[in-house]
């Protein structure tokens, strides 16, 4: 049986090699893949260099800001730039749509600024060329073009009946064909992912991404499964179709509906079902909660009074002037802590809506495998929303640590009612270590993508179920 499958596969490969139009398409996809990788690499290097330079400058600025009151330093703050992850050269993911830098300042947890898309104009909405795009959308189209008449042609020429008369079962023909086309796809993907890994190893001189090998392997695995599913499905459609034309039409419709229409409509539907507030109202709600409290009758004034009484009682004094520490610093830090609590609450609510919106898309991956591979590809390239959110959380932690250090220093080393009299210097600024970021391991991200993993597994299962039985001959 194995021998027969290989025989059919060899015959199929020879037939593919004879078709000049397919050779042209094959070359086109490879050139596009190469160009996408090249462009991604250049872009990655450019962005990386800009970000590293800017980050170093900001660090020098922070350390060299001179002697000043810690609260002024907390307002002066610093900036953090989102580092380009190495695998973003393969899949840009959401990098174009998330902010690139954040200003860390006392009292105001700013949002990320400068989404690159804001400068790219209308054309960017048509999509950017990345190697991931080629593998997700263009290679499946090549698969359609090479497979749509694999069975219909045999039916028209009568060669299928000839094979059957020689005792070759439909299952063997089917498996042979799937094997042949899978091999064609693998001749593109295997060298590509090896190349991607080598480029990665050659460029991975920072600690942002520590599991390049695993991530590249996971990407290879996901794309192999996706492309195998697409290949098997295309061959199956050809088997089921009465003519090459209907096979081609069915496959093209499947490609457009699952690759273009469903991903867009599901994302739009998700947004309609789970609407998010405008930035203005979002900020107003936060400010309102900070001023009036998250619980009833817990205004800012009352919280300050409570804090004051607590400290007076703790230190057994009658006035905050008698406290051995500067109450202003304590009050500021308490204000920060409360503000952090309010922000965390509202951000959690907002991110829950983002997740629900995205989940609407994820569920559609049961119909459109493209969505599953797109989301997993972004996740393994660390350019997905969860990776961005992790970075966002780390910058928030860093900001909180910075502000807390400044406030504590103010509380411990200055007196209540004095401001200009106390100045901290480089010794204090140096206690704030430079911001370093490492992307969590790829395996940590998997828990967010169980729907995509299940849907891809179901697609694989369906493809196995669709394999014709040995005893059932379609020709009968």
């Amino acid at each position, binding site marked *: 049986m194995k021998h027969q499958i290989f025989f059919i596969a060899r015959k199929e490969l020879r037939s593919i090699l004879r078709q000049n139009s397919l050779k042209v398409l094959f070359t086109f996809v490879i050139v*596009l893949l190469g160009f*996408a990788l090249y*462009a*991604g690499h250049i872009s990655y290097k*450019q*962005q990386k260099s800009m970000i590293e*330079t*800017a980050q170093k*400058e*900001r660090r020098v600025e922070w350390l060299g800001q001179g002697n*000043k009151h810690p609260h002024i330093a907390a*307002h*002066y703050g610093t*900036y953090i*730039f989102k580092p380009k992850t190495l695998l973003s050269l393969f899949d840009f993911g959401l990098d*174009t*749509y998330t*902010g690139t*830098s954040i*200003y860390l300042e006392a009292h105001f947890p700013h*949002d*990320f*600024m*400068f*989404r*690159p*898309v804001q*400068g790219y*104009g*209308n*054309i*960017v*909405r*048509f999509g*950017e*060329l990345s190697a991931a795009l080629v593998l997700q959308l263009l290679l499946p*189209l090549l698969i359609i073009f090479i497979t*749509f008449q694999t069975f219909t042609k045999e039916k028209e020429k009568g060669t299928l009946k000839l094979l059957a008369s020689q005792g070759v079962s439909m299952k063997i023909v089917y498996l042979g064909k799937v094997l042949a086309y899978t091999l064609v796809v693998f001749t593109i993907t295997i060298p590509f992912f090896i190349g991607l890994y080598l480029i990665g190893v050659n460029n991975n001189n920072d600690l942002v991404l520590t599991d390049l090998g695993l991530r590249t392997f996971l990407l290879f695995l996901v794309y192999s499964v996706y492309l195998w599913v697409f290949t098997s499905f295309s061959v199956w459609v050809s088997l089921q179709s009465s003519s*090459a*034309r209907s096979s*081609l*039409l069915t496959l093209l419709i499947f490609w457009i509906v699952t690759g*273009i229409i469903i991903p*867009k*409509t599901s994302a*739009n539907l998700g947004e*309609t079902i789970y609407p*998010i*507030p*405008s*930035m*203005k*109202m979002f900020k107003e709600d936060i400010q309102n909660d900070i001023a009036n409290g998250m619980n009833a009758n817990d205004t800012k004034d009352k919280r300050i009074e409570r804090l004051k009484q607590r400290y007076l009682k703790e230190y057994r004094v009658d006035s905050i002037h008698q406290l051995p520490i500067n109450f202003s610093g304590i009050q500021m830090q308490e204000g920060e802590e409360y503000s952090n609590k309010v922000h965390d609450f509202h951000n959690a609510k*907002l991110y829950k809506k*983002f997740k629900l*919106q995205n989940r609407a*898309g994820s569920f559609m991956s049961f119909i459109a495998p493209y969505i599953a591979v797109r989301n997993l590809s972004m996740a393994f390239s660390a350019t*997905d*929303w969860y990776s961005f959110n992790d970075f966002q959380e780390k910058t928030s932690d860093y900001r909180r640590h910075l502000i807390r250090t400044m406030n504590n220093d103010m509380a411990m080393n200055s007196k209540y009612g004095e401001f*200009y009299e106390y100045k901290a210097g480089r010794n204090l600024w140096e206690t704030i270590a430079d911001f370093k970021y490492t992307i969590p391991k790829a395996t940590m991200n998997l828990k967010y993508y169980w729907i995509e993993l299940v849907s891809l597994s179901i697609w694989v299962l369906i493809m196995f179920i669709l394999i014709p039985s040995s005893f059932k001959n379609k020709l009968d």
Partner: protein
Amino acid sequence: MKLILLLWQRESISIMRNTFQIIMLGSIFLLGIYAIYYGHSKISVQQKAINDVENIESTEFENYKNSFNTKHISTKEKQLFDIASNPAFAWYRHQYHAILPSNGLAHLSLGQRDIEPYYYKLTSSSLYYQLFGSELANPQKLYVGNFDISFVFIYLFPLLIIAFTYGLYAEEKENGILPLLKLQTIGLRKILILRILFYYVLIVSLSIVLSSIGFMVATEINLMDGFLWVLAVLCYLSFWFALMFFLISLKRNSSLTSICAASLWLLFLIVMPAVLNAYANIMYPIDNTTLADVTRRRSIENEDDPNEAKAIIREYLHKRDDLKGADSLMNINTMAKTYASFTALNDNHHRKEVLAYYNQIALRQKKIAQFRWLNPAVNTQGILNKIVETDSKVFQSFYHSIENFHKDITKFYFNRLFLNKNISFEDYNTLPEFNLKIDKTAKNQQIRYGLAVVTTTTFLIVLLSLFIFNKRPS
């Protein structure tokens, strides 16, 4: 005329019998309706945000005005009156909003409206501290894009055209009907053109019906915008019909014709724009890291030193000839004047960097625009965005208008602050107002040019197809 009716009747029957084609037409129509609904709901949400913003602003200023008529007994009342009347507080507390209202037809093509902020909160403190925020958005949603009616016309209608026309010649040949058609006196080319025309009328009618529904749900409609919209859609669909006529003229089998048509669709809608974006990323990268420092909230090194404070005020007043005499008044509200001067000087200092950033964007978009003529899909999307004022140029005009608005706000408060004049109740009648300036002449010129390019391309393809059809053997 009789022949046209006869052929069109035959095509109608053929469509009615073809379940697949009926489903396809129905699906595209329903998707079109959903796209209009989606666009409309998105703009409604934005309109609600604009209303909220306007309400917040008007309530705030109403409170300030009312504070002139209260007795200021409580601390809060006193504070409110201080903010309302004393420019030393008002210059950084009074919040204005610059709003980019949506065009009546914006729901048809959302363009950049989900990416660029459409309102800004402004005080007379540093412009750049306030300018670079973003609107809340789910990045994954931004990445996927909008399913508006322009998407349906640009992406899906060409597929409809391909599905209906790819087999007009080849299928007749494959079904053995071609020899019969050749026997007709009117000629094969004419029959083919009449059949294509039938689908042209059908699909164009569908686009007009959907556009009309889109116009009907619009809150207001400018007739010229509506006319240009329909014209742009017609030009684009005509281009695709011309392209299909060209492929049919090559007289290849139906599979090859459909593969070529699908490849062209892929080329215009995905490959070409994607490659162009990649090219722009390499050749014209935008470095926004230089702007990070610009947005920083700065404080004066030695703000407690009166000499340093006055030096800052003097430096600012040196640039303001219209505030002569303010030098002698700097002992009152010194700290407020110092910080007001400091933020204005800082903005002046950073203007070059901000300009350089916007120049990078303008250069990138200018270079990309040079390739627009090559791709009618990108060109038409640009035209549609331009008609409904959701293109990036509108946002650039918005930004320039904000700069002017900020200048007006600054002038209003700084004049009173530096000349020690309180804000009076009457001053509230002359508060700065935001004026959005869009260059309509340039907009119309760009639309006309874009339409001319698509029309010329279509015309040339039709001519070439007619020539090829006669030359190639059946």
